[in-house]
């Protein structure tokens, strides 16, 4: 029987090594795998390269990892926000590196990583500071820059429901980066509100097919 369910979130993150690249789903506070992040904090891995649209607010989410110097680098579209003061302070102290990425390019680089596409040309960022050092080419009359795929050793995604095969459905805009990150993580850990029986999820509405998910944990809600 296939069963990707872990009873404990601590077990699900136990093998994450120092220096891993981790994709963290979520837009602001929507669709963030908070319990997985806390488990990673307890686990203690260091020098993590974090891929997350936001750097976490106050001391929540990955802000807690950043506060304790667990991330050596963040790939991100929206680092500068009043509530993201933990990241801003660490960045200004030179304790964390930043790769600033336009949000659509960020999503597409991750999607490409999951889809086996090594790079793509996009018009986003042409003539801006994000184009510095990137190959520029005119294609079909449009000036584009070359952007490379992003993959994770792990992906932490948050979904509403899963079955034991790892099929996922999401809640509203909590979906955001989670489906593409699930595709691009070598080991994708899905933190879900509910685990249902096989066959219970309508196959027409499954957003992430289980092929992209390796581990499932039900949130404790604590």
């Amino acid at each position: 029987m296939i069963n990707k369910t872990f009873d404990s979130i601590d077990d699900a993150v136990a093998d994450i090594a120092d220096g891993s690249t981790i994709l963290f789903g979520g837009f602001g506070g929507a669709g963030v795998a908070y319990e997985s992040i806390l488990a990673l904090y307890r686990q203690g891995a260091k020098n993590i390269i974090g891929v997350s649209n936001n750097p976490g607010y106050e001391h929540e989410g990955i802000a807690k990892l950043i506060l304790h110097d667990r991330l050596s680098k963040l790939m991100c579209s929206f680092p500068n926000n009043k509530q993201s003061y933990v990241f801003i302070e660490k960045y200004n102290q030179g304790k964390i590196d930043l790769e600033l990425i336009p949000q659509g390019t960020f999503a597409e680089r991750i999607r490409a990583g999951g889809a086996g596409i090594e790079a793509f040309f996009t018009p986003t960022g042409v003539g801006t500071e994000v184009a510095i050092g990137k190959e520029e080419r005119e294609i079909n009359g449009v000036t584009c820059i070359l952007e490379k795929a992003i993959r994770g050793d792990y992906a932490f995604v948050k979904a509403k429901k899963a079955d034991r095969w790892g099929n996922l459905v999401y809640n509203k805009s909590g979906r955001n980066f989670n489906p593409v990150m699930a595709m691009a993580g070598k080991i994708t850990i899905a933190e879900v509100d509910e685990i249902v029986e096989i066959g219970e999820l309508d196959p027409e509405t499954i957003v992430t097919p289980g092929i992209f998910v390796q581990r499932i944990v039900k949130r404790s809600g604590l």
Partner: protein
Amino acid sequence: MEKRKLTREQIAQRIARDLQTGDIVNIGIGIPVLVSNYVASDAEIIYHSEQGVLGMGKKAKPGEEDPDLVNASKEPVTLVPGGSYSHSADSFAMARGKHIDVAILGGMQVSEKGDLANWKVKGVKLGSIGGAMDIAIGAKKIFIAMTHTSKSGEIKIVNQLDYPVTALHCVNRIYTDLAVIDVTRDGLILKEIAPGFTIEEVQEVTEPKLIKAEDLKVIEV
């Protein structure tokens, strides 16, 4: 006529008149957020929000908030009947893939050629791009809503940007407290002017030479 600069609300109101039923519209923060307040309720304008909401409704009332349903400023919102959710890559496919009719964005500087700067102040180390660059190059039309000059009186419509660029050659129309200006291949066309102001007065706070529209009008407020 009494000289009257437009308020932020009046700029939003003026922009709302240029939206048509069926338009799919992306709205940035600042003055753009106010635009939806002035759209007729039966107009069926569909609002796209970058985090994967098509058909975004009003802000959620107390008690109906869902932390998983937020706008681009991370505030709780609602979904209208007919609305849908998508993941971020599809949401930006809508933007980059020219599926969005109009994006209404704030501006720090706009150049004569329609180059836009709106993501980071000059000389600052850290800024947030978010969806600004993708949306600016992707929407079919870009409307900029901003004050004509900065609080300290700096000119914002310039020959060449000296703020960090968001996107090149992307702006179609600029709405300010003094004027409505179209960006064209021939240059900046002054289409409408705030009540009581002269062309010379608007030109004084606009670096590139303005071309007077044949049908130049006073902005109706």
